[in-house]
């Protein structure tokens, strides 16, 4: 059976069959200081507000974008 995976900022990320909570995925990908970084997250091209990170389960094939402020003109 093939491994389940999602995509975080373009990179493949293996997950368990039952999925992974978005909050845990962000901690794994970014680190524990995630709350200091003014992050914003989209799943499958839809914004997921921070208050919902704990309620969302990421499943096979989901596409996650984790962004933050950067240099810009």
């Amino acid at each position, binding site marked *: 059976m093939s491994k389940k995976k999602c995509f975080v900022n373009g990179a493949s990320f293996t997950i368990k069959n039952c999925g992974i909570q978005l909050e845990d995925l962000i901690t794994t990908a970014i680190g524990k200081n995630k709350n200091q970084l003014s992050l914003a*997250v989209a799943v499958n091209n839809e914004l997921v507000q*921070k208050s919902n990170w704990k309620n969302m389960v990421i499943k096979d094939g989901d596409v996650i*974008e984790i962004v*933050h*402020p*950067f*240099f810009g003109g």
Partner: protein
Amino acid sequence: MSKKKDELIIGGKKIMSRLIMGTSLYPNLDVLNKSLEASGTEIITVSMRRFNKEGEKFFLKGIKNKYTFLPNTAGCFTKKEAVLTAELSRESLKTDWIKLELISDNEMLLPDPLELFATCEELVKRRFKIFAYCSDDPILCKRLEELGCVAVMPLISPIGSGLGIRNEHNLEIIRGMCKGVIIVDAGIGTPSHACRVMELGFDGVLLNSSVARSFDPIQMANAMSLATKSGRLSYLSGPIEKTKKAVRSTPFRGKISNF
């Protein structure tokens, strides 16, 4: 004589500096911070990008948080991309301000007027305060203003080109037609460009490359600040009318007789 206060209010916020600064392309964070300081700016533009360590350094430890952040949608080609980027920036920075950029091509980075207008319609519904980066088309500027953009921001030449004003007549028409906040964005190369734009009565200037890519960004930031203020003062002071012939300044009367 009472002196009227020269206030600039954008999206309900009173702004003292009419110079908005970009934060990209600086040699390092120290020069960036010193340049922002020298410019006297209050509003700085930022992008939203995928998390990386460089970005973490920029936002968490690098940039001083005394500025008002104006997130942009740089690099977006479609309404869908721009709307999501705007939503992400609102979540990240807790601001409903958005500098809306929708480009049409990778070579000239010119704004796509149709996609821009459609996206503005959507973002107005979502209660964003839009700073719309657009082409220097007077009718488009007017339509964006009527739609409810808090600032309309025509280019004067392509982004990062430094070419300065390419169509001054269009700028005059835009200023005449639009009664709201009009800020020139993109194309400034030298302080004289910024000054001229302000002399035409524009409300402000947004620039990045002309400072960041100059030999001495800190000094250039100061020069841009002085130029913006100078142009504004000139506009408010009411310059003299141009004439085809000379108009004597020293009185002729009382001069010794001709011989």
